Structure formats: structure tokens, C-alpha cells
């Protein structure tokens, strides 16, 4: 019996995408509009991820690898900054940037092995489902059907929903880097996009039922709703949510680090599924320095830049890979 070394990272990618929904600073659309466009956006994101993976393999080149690595480092620092700003907004004068970096980055040392990422992601996914159920149960008396908005679905409202859902997170591109692609399910990206967009729409639904017309203006809406939930066990449910979100960001960073490791490693005969400990001081220093440089900037603008950069990068790879496919007529295309 041989051991299967293929990393199973679907749960990690999913948790990483769900964390984006939970850490949203503002909602993006009304539920009716979101539901109407969700099938299209999910299909588009899955298709783009699939095409990207094909094109990435068709034309491997150092420039793309470097750009992807830069994007991942930039994204990692944004995730840290986003969590820090959320904590600073919710608990002013109690959380420092270094404290957040420390809390989030230390678990990444444990998560340097890909098997640890996969196992932790499964546990975290279960915990998120349980916390979500607890959140719903505790909020149920405060959800009002009449809070649902019934706008006429005009082009503006629909395009707002499309642009809010069509955020191309690096997670949709990461499967292109994983080893032994042929061992993976054929519909991995479709399932990933469908679950992530479905969760996003469902969360918008809950928030709309809770906040009504005030939903678009409410800052940190998921947390604001979570803090109103009180079960007999969790009098303040917000702490459970915050703890889970911090763990989810750690997992996200570990996933990005593993992708960085694959981008930077030299080709060899054996597959190394762990990031070497000797790289951590440099990794920590790099992220801390980036966070220090960016901490005064507007995080929403930085995230918008990230989204544009990821779209631009994906388009570049698709064009380059497509061109390589056409000229070389490789079987991998």
C-alpha cells in the first residue's frame, strides 16, 4: 500500500474564501439581485480558474511565477491589515498591529506542512458550520421577513451585484499550482465557486433580514450581527466568531505560503510538501515590513488594487498561455 502524497486542499481553499465573506467591511448588494446573478458569476469564476490553470501549465515562465509570488505576498499583508483594522474598529486602543501579526503568523509555523493545512481546514470548516448555525439560532428572533427589500431589478442594481461577486480572489488561481492535477476532481473549481458565492449570497440574505434598509451602510455587518446574538452558552457570540476568523486568516496565510513555496522551489525529483523553517524569519520580516508600510493606507483602496491586479495577472497568463498553446500545439492544452 503506497501513501497518497497528493495534498487535499479543497477545504482550505473553501475556508479561505469564506473568510473573505466574514471579514467584509460592507455588504455589496441586495439579496434578490445577488440571487439573480449568482449562477452566472459562479460559473464565470470557475471557468476562469479552469482556463487559468490550463494556460499556466501551457507556458510556465519565471516572469509569471514572480508576479504571482508578488501578488500572494501583497495579499498576505492585506489580510493581516484587514484583520487588524477590523479589530481596531471593534476594540479601539486594545489591539496593536504587531499583536495581530503575532497572533496570526505564529500558527503558520505549525501550518507549514501541507497535511497540517488540510487537516486544520477540515476542523475549521466544521467549526465555522457550527458557529454559523449558532449565529443563525441566536439571531433567529431578530430576523424579520419584512426587512427584505423589493427593488425593481434594474441594470444598475444587477451590475452592482455582479461587480461585488466577481472579485477574483487568488484562491481561484491557486489550484493551478498544486501538484498532480490529474488526481483532482474535475469539478473542483466549480464546486469551490458555487459554495463561495452561495455562502456570500446566503450571508447577505441573513444580513438583509437583520438590518433591513440599513444594511448597505452598516460597517462590519457580520460582526455587528454576531454581537447581537446571545445563546445561553455564548452570551457574547462575537468572541467565538472573532476567534474563528483569526484562525481562518492564519489558514489563508499558510495556504498562500505553501503556494509561494511551490512558486519559488527549484524543480527536483521529489515532492516537498512542507515549507522549510529556515524561511520563516524572512517571511515574517517581509510581512511585518509590508504591513508597516501599508498600515496608514486605505484598506478598501488596497483591496480594490489587489482585485484589479489579480484580474490583470489572470488575463496576462490566459493570453500568454493561450498563445503558447496555439503556437506549440501541446497536448497539455
Amino acid at each position: 500500500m503506497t501513501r497518497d502524497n497528493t495534498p487535499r486542499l479543497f477545504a482550505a481553499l473553501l475556508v479561505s474564501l469564506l473568510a473573505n465573506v466574514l471579514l467584509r467591511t460592507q455588504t455589496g448588494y441586495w439579496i434578490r439581485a445577488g440571487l439573480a446573478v449568482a449562477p452566472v458569476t459562479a460559473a464565470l469564476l470557475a471557468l476562469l480558474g479552469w482556463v487559468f490553470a490550463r494556460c499556466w501549465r501551457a507556458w510556465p515562465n519565471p516572469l509569471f511565477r514572480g508576479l504571482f509570488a508578488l501578488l500572494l505576498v501583497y495579499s498576505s499583508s492585506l489580510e493581516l491589515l484587514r484583520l487588524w483594522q477590523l479589530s481596531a474598529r471593534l476594540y479601539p486602543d486594545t489591539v496593536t498591529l504587531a499583536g495581530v501579526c503575532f497572533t496570526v503568523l505564529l500558527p503558520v509555523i505549525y501550518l507549514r506542512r501541507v497535511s497540517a493545512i488540510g487537516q486544520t481546514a477540515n476542523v475549521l470548516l466544521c467549526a465555522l458550520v457550527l458557529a454559523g448555525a449558532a449565529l443563525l439560532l441566536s439571531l433567529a428572533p431578530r430576523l424579520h421577513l419584512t426587512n427584505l427589500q423589493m427593488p425593481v431589478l434594474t441594470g444598475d442594481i444587477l451590475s452592482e451585484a455582479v461587480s461585488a461577486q466577481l472579485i477574483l480572489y487568488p484562491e481561484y488561481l491557486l489550484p493551478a499550482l498544486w501538484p498532480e492535477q490529474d488526481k483532482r476532481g474535475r469539478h473542483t473549481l466549480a464546486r469551490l465557486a458555487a459554495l463561495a458565492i452561495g455562502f456570500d449570497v446566503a450571508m447577505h440574505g441573513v444580513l438583509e433580514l437583520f438590518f433591513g434598509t440599513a444594511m448597505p451602510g452598516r460597517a462590519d455587518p457580520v460582526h455587528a450581527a454576531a454581537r447581537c446574538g446571545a445563546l445561553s452558552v455564548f452570551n457574547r457570540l462575537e468572541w467565538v466568531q472573532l476567534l474563528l476568523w483569526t484562525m481562518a486568516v492564519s489558514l489563508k496565510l499558510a495556504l498562500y505560503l505553501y503556494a509561494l513555496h511551490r512558486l519559488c522551489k527549484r524543480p527536483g525529483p521529489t515532492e516537498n510538501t512542507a515549507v522549510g523553517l529556515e524561511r520563516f524569519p524572512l517571511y515574517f520580516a517581509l510581512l511585518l515590513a509590508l504591513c508597516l508600510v501599508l498600515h496608514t493606507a486605505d484598506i478598501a483602496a488596497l483591496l480594490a488594487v489587489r482585485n484589479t491586479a489579480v484580474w490583470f495577472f489572470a488575463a496576462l497568463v490566459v493570453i500568454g498561455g493561450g498563445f503558447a498553446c496555439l503556437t506549440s500545439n501541446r497536448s497539455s492544452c
Partner: protein
Amino acid sequence: MSDLKPKLLLTLLFTVLLCGCSQHTLASREIVRAVCFGAENEVCLILEGKEENDYRSIQGQGDTMAQALDAAQRQLTGQAYYGLMDVAVLPATVDFRQARELGELLYEKAQPAPESAVFSADWNGDTAAELYDCLRRMKEPHCGLERLFEQEDCCFIPLWQQESFGYLLLQQGHTERVIQPEAASLIAVLCGQSSHVDMTFANNTAHITADARFSVEPTAQQTLVTVTLRDVKLSALTPVMEERTAQQRLADSLQQAFSRYAVLPADPFRLDFFASCRFGAQQKAASPRLSITFE
């Protein structure tokens, strides 16, 4: 590996140094249980005392409510902690705009603002702690802070009237003060702030407790709202009042209140929502009617 350990330890030490350990202990914080806003830019903070159910109050005044809140906070010996705040009291004379401003102030200034029930009441510095003690025991009606912002142009806030509660119906440019217990109970049920009726009505001649539910059935000709009262315990408080008469008088009072408030342009009971669900977006509810069922 031997090279690595000092580097890791140094990184750890550097991070711990950056983190610092200068946070306030919980014991040095002043735990705010309620914020009461007064009519003349005055704010009273109800603080938790050293013993259970022991509360003290601190007042502040200013040119604006935000200044008054700051002034009250400055008088505290420790840092104000709003994590356990469960009641916010708005002035009984509050209007729609001011209610929203105070709601925003609570969201922004009193962070972390947890689950808080909002009431409106007349109070003074001597009675504020006592008022808080009464309000925190009230499970229903429950008007969360977020309910001030749920609808674009109106909101309902329970009005504390010592022995019973009324309602403030706040609309842009117009405020209705509902003091009859029958109307207040109907509003509490129809706007989802209560699922229970417990009141003395008909000039204190009868008392009812019941579980209340409602459903809305819109048609092209009318919008039928059915309020169902279950497990009804109706008792006459005077010998001359019969149970059947009490029931009829209650139904009449509820009909009267419904016909007055359901037709307001702000659509306080969101009947248009049900019409939109049935007939398509932006449809208006036709001729609202109330039906009351006792079970």
C-alpha cells in the same frame, strides 16, 4: 537547526516587544449598563456597582448629546466599558431624526455596542438607576438598536409609561405618541417586537395575557391581516364586565388602532412588502383589514 533557533527566538522576542503589555485590566474599567439620553442634551450613564443589582449613575451635559456623553465619560474613574450595555433610553420627546442620530452615536461612540434594547422614557438623575432596573427586566417588547434603521422613513420605539408601555411612532417630520395599551400591543405584535400580549385594557376593567401571531394575505381588493391570540387568559377586573364583552371591547379597540396606523403613508407595518411578494415589486397593499381570532 542550531542556526535557526536563535533567529526564531529573536523574531518572537521582537514581536512580543512590539505587542507590549500595557492594556487596562477589566477591574479598572467602569462597566456601563445603560445610557439614558435626556431632552436637554444631558446624558446619564448607569454603571454597575460592586454588588449584584447595585447600580449608580453619572450625568453629563453639553451643547450636543455627543458632548454630554463625553462629559459623563470624563467623570468616570476608570475607562468606560460598553461591552455589557443592555439598555439605551431616548428622551420621550425624541423625533425621527434625533432617534437616528442617537442610534449612530451609540454605534460609533459607545463601541463595543452589544445587543441593546432601546426605549424612550421620561427620567431624571434620581430615577435613572431605578428606571434601568425596570427596563432590563422587560423581555418584551424588544426594540434592538438596529431597528431604528431598518426602514427608511419610520421606526417604532417602546415608550415606558411606569405601569404599562406605549409606543412612539417616528416618521420623517411627524411623531405619533401611542399611549393606549391596546394600540401599543397591536403595534408591538405587527412590527415584530413582541409575540406576547399582557395588558390591562378598557379603562382598567379587564386584563389579558396571550401569545400573539399574525399573518398577512394580500389580494387585489384588500390586504387581510389576521392576528391570532392563543392561550388567552382574559379576566374581568370589575364584576360588571363579562368575559364576552371584554373580548368584544378588545377587538373593537384593536380594529380602531389598526385603521388609524395601517394606512399611514410610511407603511409602518410593511404591508406593501407582502403585496410586492404576491403581485411584483413596488406594488402597494390594497385596503388593509384586520381580523382577530381568539383560540
